């Protein structure tokens, strides 16, 4: 399978600390790739670089055939890169439905005048957006909450709204930043099932960050292990599980 995403020698520093150190790996189209590693290994920074929230100091990113040194978040979105956030960057004062609708912004073509006065392309856009939003809301079991203001919802539901918002625009590549953080085992199993289903049903390539290694070994077909911003292992779950460098990174004996 062709690689949808490739990182070539990407480095990033914050106030003197190297968050990412000459990182290179490739993600094949249609696969689920998990990024694991101890805290502070640079995983969130990596996602931020891929979709343009941070600008790498050096190195390139190749997405869907196009090569970038840096990309702006809006452009990344329009190319079909979607993501969820570790700390739930939901639009707090909007409802679930409005949050999901906002996720469709990159598909909007009507001008603002058409939007305001409800003519031209706005009508078609409204029905189209509403349909897509309803579909994803149903898919993720959020119908009961659709008119609730997200700030009032429990954490687990918020995480699903975040996912719905990222999913609704049918991205080619979906970056999930700790989608199971704060969940119990049952919830994690459900989220795992959702992720698998999204990948199967829509063919979305998924890159996710996750701490629960057990879940990850069952969910992902490709695992990349990071430690101190460097790649420590890169391969199938079986290969990674038995890699001594990986074990050492987690246990802290070799640095």
């Amino acid at each position, binding site marked *: 399978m062709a690689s949808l995403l490739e990182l070539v020698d990407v480095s990033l520093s914050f106030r003197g600390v190297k968050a990412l150190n000459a990182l290179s790996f490739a993600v094949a189209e249609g696969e689920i790739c998990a990024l694991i590693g101890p805290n502070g290994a640079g995983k969130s920074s990596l996602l931020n670089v891929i979709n343009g929230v941070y600008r790498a100091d050096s190195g390139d990113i190749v997405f869907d055939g196009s090569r970038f040194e840096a990309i702006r978040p*809006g452009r990344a979105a329009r190319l079909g890169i979607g993501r969820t956030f570790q700390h739930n*960057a*939901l639009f707090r*004062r*909007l409802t679930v439905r409005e949050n999901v609708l906002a996720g469709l*912004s990159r598909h909007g073509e*009507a001008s603002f005048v058409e939007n305001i006065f*409800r003519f031209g392309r706005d009508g078609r856009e409204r029905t189209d957006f509403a349909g897509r939003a309803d579909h994803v809301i149903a898919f993720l*079991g959020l119908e009961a*909450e659709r008119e609730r203001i997200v700030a009032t919802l429990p954490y687990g539901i918020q995480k699903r709204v975040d996912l719905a918002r990222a999913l609704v625009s049918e991205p080619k590549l979906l970056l999930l930043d700790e989608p199971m953080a704060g969940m119990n085992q049952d919830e994690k199993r459900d989220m795992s099932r959702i992720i698998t289903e999204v990948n199967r049903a829509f063919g979305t390539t998924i890159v996710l960050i996750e701490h629960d290694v057990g879940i990850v070994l069952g969910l992902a077909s490709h695992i990349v292990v990071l430690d101190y911003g460097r790649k420590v292992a890169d391969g199938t779950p079986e290969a990674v599980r038995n890699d001594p460098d990986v074990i050492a990174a987690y246990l802290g004996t070799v640095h």
Partner: protein
Amino acid sequence: MTTIQDSIPEAGPAEALPSGATLLQIGLVAAGLVIAFGLVPSLASDYWLSSIIIPTVVMGLAGISLNLLQGYAGLVSLGSAAFMAVGAFSAYNLILRVPGLPLPAVLLLAGLIAAVVGVFFGLPALRIKGFYLAASTLGAQFFFPWLFTNYPWFSNNSQSLTISAPRLEFLGYDLQSPLGRYLLVATVTALLIGLAFLVVRSRLGREWMAIRDMETAASVLGIRVARRKLQAYAVSSFFLGITGVLWGFAYLGTADAHTYNLDKSFQILFIVLIGGTATIFGNFLGAAFIVLTPILLDHVVLAANIAYLSDQGAITNLQRVIFGAIIIFILIKEPDGLSAWIRRGVGALRARLGR
């Protein structure tokens, strides 16, 4: 396609107001129109119209204008009055130099000119975030009074640099009387309220609120943040321009550059604060407060017969203290303003009545 059904905790009290037009909302709008165009004109005295109702409605409109920018799009502005000035002076010059323009066209063009100016002063928003943005609109607030004072051309070279209201008329109807001016103000306001709702309930309004709540996430979703911010300045300033014309022509009668000063911008800011951010009707609550408090205070002072305070300066200062204290109080107790307080009250009432 699998759907995942989780057990979800019982729905709590916080629900968004229904976004479709419900029977109740249609009823309220109808009632509002009846009151505005039926009851008020027939019952209100000239004094009430001229001194209380017209300024309240116009300042409420000013509140809506600022609310669109600050409450919905999250962009700070301390220069609202400056854009009102641009509208007023533009209208004056249009009427003066382009003969035969009907009143609606004048209002529309004045609004558009103010919108363009607003976009210009909003450009820094593309790079500057948060509170620092106040510097740009504050700059506008100092620039325009200077501009209109320094170049007498804007006020037709009048000695006192004032602009006075033209003969207000439309389709042959004379709008000079208090009633006429009220109808003008009410009609324009009703139309602009309608426009405000259209804007806020459109994709534009939704994306503004997204940018307000979490800008990074908004850009990550593909929302064109820069474009939306400039559109916010454009729409808000359009509203402010028209408001400025109404304030100068339908309420005051004459205006000069200093009519639309920093104090006025602060008043509008207070209206938004008191009435509530991200509301439309709340602004009229705030405006009522701003307009009525000085009047009430005057009456209280008169009634209490406090000779000490009959000095106008002292009353003004007392008003200042009261205003300031109320601002602080509202910020502490009810940061979302009176409309949130009312909404909560209504919610509690509904809960009490058992839905």
